[in-house]
């Protein structure tokens, strides 16, 4: 009964009649009845049946509700539960059992059956973002936020069954159609979460991740071990609604281990012995920002906002974490949807501490790069938004694995992870005890240092000076250019676009049907990515599916500048700030299919800053692809044809 009332209220959006005002009154009156049952189901950690749809405020006038800092506990998301799938995964889609249609899994004979099988069901749930808050309506995998983390191992095939059990008829801003992209796995396009391959409620889809190194064709076996990537994440990629579905919570982390980084800290053959116990000494730090409505009806609902005023770390606002005097590994991931973070470590005396970056976008660096106030590693060479010394800039979808050594601080010290911007805090709540110069609104996490108890794993050896060797760069077969532009002022609607140099002045909008660039499998290409056309002042974290790239050159306003050290490693997101460009190089190997290049600012990719490119297995396929290549400004062309009377 109360649930029905809540729905009715939402339905009055756009019109406020006397009747709906009466209904709001009724819903508020029912709140006291609703609250206890909702709270108890959250406390148990599961939902049975459906979760009442939220009654969201459209545009709150004030900031999000106040929270008390350092009450919540920082913790890693649960590891996903590995269990048998029923019915069994199949090479061809099991449409009869409710699987969404898809191409057969590539290399099935080579890599089936799966060693790890996970089932992640996208469904509505409730999550409490802060102990001061009431539960918030979310869409999460298995109803949880953050989603469970999938733990995987190189050479062991993983199949994740993504099940869509989102509400059929939803009043939220999300779309109940999903396609899950594993960022940045090396696998067939049928498992890649192509933006146009979304499937609706009631269906499921098996994504097959063979979890191999790139270079299968050349190296055989499970590929070239120097191609390893470790911190990946999966998220909904539904064309045009990626932002909405990701705000609601459809994303999670996906770790991969091997001998070099085995997920434990014992000395073993080939192991670097980096801090590696998941949830004990090795933590994902999943960043996002959200905005909340005032608490009402036993809920603190979130707003559909491209930028929030509360920084959220692993699902909590300003959590605290007890750390032992030893090394810890933190895997920063910015899940956006749009904001960029500048993260630094603040020591008890207020000065900037050292974070040692060991991996960028999940790829180990050849040599670890310490980031501190003295020797800023130069994570960015932006003129318009210079980075603060000692900070690591993390734009949407970028990952930075850092190691922080807490052994250098006495027990009882408090350290802070700082974001350069300031979130909204309760103005009446003056927080004493912070180091001078640090604003409470800037703190992401507080670390409370304690002595290591005997049962806690002992410290790991010093970080090796060489972590990996990168694969040799092969000769270039082709050069290509993508420009990231926005329509000029006065165009309605003003879309974000990707443009090829030979396109018309505007460029392409996302067309899932047509490839904008056809690539022969096994070739190597140099791509010039450009954000200095059209006077765009936006940051575009450009993400390329499927393959890692190396940055050969960086440009600011067309002038070549040195590649910042943290951008010089293998990456899959190239952050283009205002006026910047990058020359990158990558190989296209092992699989055929359609993939994407897009801006990972989710508001931009939803506004069409995304194009499809295809890997074709042979010349005939390549020719067919080129013949059907995307023609940008298709609408304009069709209009002309219409005027010519060709179609009527």
């Amino acid at each position, binding site marked *: 009964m109360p649930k029905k009332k809540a729905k009715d209220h939402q339905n009055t959006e756009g019109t406020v009649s006397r009747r709906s005002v009466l209904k709001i009154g009724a819903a508020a009156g029912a709140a006291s009845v609703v609250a206890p049952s909702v709270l108890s189901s959250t406390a148990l950690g599961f939902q049975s049946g459906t979760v009442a749809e939220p009654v*969201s405020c459209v545009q709150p006038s004030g900031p999000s509700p106040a929270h008390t800092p350092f009450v919540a506990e920082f913790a890693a998301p649960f590891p996903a539960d590995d269990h048998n799938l029923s019915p069994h995964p199949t090479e061809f889609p099991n449409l009869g059992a409710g699987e969404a249609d898809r191409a057969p899994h590539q290399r099935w004979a080579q890599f089936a059956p799966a060693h790890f099988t996970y089932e992640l069901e996208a469904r509505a749930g409730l999550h409490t973002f802060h102990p001061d808050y009431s539960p918030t309506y979310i869409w999460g995998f298995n109803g949880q936020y953050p989603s469970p983390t999938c733990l995987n191992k190189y050479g062991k095939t993983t199949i994740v069954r993504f099940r869509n059990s989102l509400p059929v*008829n939803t009043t939220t801003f999300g779309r109940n159609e999903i396609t899950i992209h594993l960022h940045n796995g090396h696998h067939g396009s049928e498992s890649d979460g192509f933006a146009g391959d979304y499937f609706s409620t009631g269906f499921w889809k098996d994504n097959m991740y063979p979890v191999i190194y790139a270079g299968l064709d050349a190296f055989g076996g499970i590929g070239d071990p120097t191609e390893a990537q470790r911190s990946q994440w999966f998220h909904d990629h539904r064309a045009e609604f990626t932002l909405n579905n990701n705000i609601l919570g459809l994303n999670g982390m996906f770790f991969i281990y091997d001998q070099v980084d085995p997920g434990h800290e014992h000395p073993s053959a080939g192991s670097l012995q980096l801090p590696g116990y998941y949830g004990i000494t090795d933590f994902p730090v999943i960043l996002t920002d959200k905005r909340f409505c005032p608490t009402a009806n036993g809920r603190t609902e979130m707003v559909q906002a491209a930028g929030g005023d509360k920084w959220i770390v692993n699902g909590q606002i300003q959590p605290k974490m007890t750390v032992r005097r030893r090394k810890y590994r933190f895997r920063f991931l910015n899940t956006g949807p749009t904001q960029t973070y500048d993260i630094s470590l603040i020591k008890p005396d207020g000065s900037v501490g050292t974070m040692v970056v060991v991996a960028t976008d999940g790829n180990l660096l050849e040599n670890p790069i310490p980031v501190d106030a003295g020797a800023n590693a130069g994570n960015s060479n932006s003129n318009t938004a210079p980075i603060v010394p000692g900070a690591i800039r993390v734009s949407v979808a970028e990952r930075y694995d850092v190691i922080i050594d807490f052994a250098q601080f006495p027990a009882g010290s408090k350290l802070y992870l700082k974001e350069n911007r300031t979130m909204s805090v309760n103005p009446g709540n003056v927080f004493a005890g912070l180091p001078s110069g640090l604003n409470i609104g800037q703190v992401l996490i507080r670390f409370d240092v304690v002595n290591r108890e005997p049962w806690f794993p002992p410290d790991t050896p010093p970080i090796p000076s060489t972590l990996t060797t990168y694969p040799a760069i092969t000769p270039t077969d082709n050069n290509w250019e993508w420009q990231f532009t926005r329509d000029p002022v006065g165009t309605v609607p003003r879309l974000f676009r990707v443009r090829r140099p030979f396109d018309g002045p505007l460029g392409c909008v996302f067309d899932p049907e047509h490839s904008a660039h056809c690539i022969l499998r096994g070739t190597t290409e140099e791509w010039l990515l450009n954000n200095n056309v059209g006077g765009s002042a936006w940051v575009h974290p450009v993400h390329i599916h499927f393959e890692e790239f190396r940055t050969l050159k960086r440009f600011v306003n067309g002038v070549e500048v040195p590649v910042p050290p943290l951008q010089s490693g293998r990456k899959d997101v190239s952050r283009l700030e205002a006026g910047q460009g990058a020359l990158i190089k990558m190989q296209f190997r092992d699989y055929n299919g*359609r993939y994407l290049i897009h801006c990972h600012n989710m508001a931009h990719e939803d506004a069409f800053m995304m194009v499809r490119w295809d890997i*074709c297995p042979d010349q005939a396929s390549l020719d067919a692809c080129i013949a059907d290549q995307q023609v940008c400004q298709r609408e304009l062309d*069709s209009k002309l044809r219409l005027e010519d009377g060709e179609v009527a």
Partner: protein
Amino acid sequence: MDRRALFNRVFEPHPASPGPSRFTNAVLRTQDNKEVRFYDDLIKGKQAVINFMYAECHGACPLVTQTLKKTYRELKDRMGKDLFFYSITTKPEDDSPAALKHYATMRKADLPGWYFLTGNEYDIQTIRFRLFGMGHPGFDLDDSLHAGMLRIVNDARNSWGMAQAFASQKNILKRIEWQDNPKSYAQRVIESRARQVLIMRDVEKYGYRRDV
């Protein structure tokens, strides 16, 4: 594990349609100047593809109408029986039933089961918010942003979908099909076999599945 339960997942009853409280029951006029109520006459128990247009539009609207016409040809057997197209004008002050009739005739779209609708501006804006609203004034207040989208509603099943009007024929048909009433297990097995053949044809021809 009861395997049958898994097969039957999509047959689970969906919550009942919220009816006019969601869709409104606004009085609209068709191109034949017939008075209809939006929920009772057009939506209730039916499957419908809804888009917004206006007669004087020279950009996207004629193309969307063109796309819908092709889609109509494909689904001819169902049109006017359990499936309907509704093209609602965003400029009701300009578009009288006669103007819409002219538009439909000119585009050879004046077909059974396809209504071009006009009405009170307030009602039409309300319907537009209800069907295409994203809860964001920047998007919602911009009429042009919904021009290229088709809303697919199946009231009997109480399910909602969306399609890009500029997507391919196949793509649109697939999205309409997603909102169809649940099919029997036997029917889905037959369809899965048929689709598998098409996918394999694509894979054999190009080495990968090119069509979306």
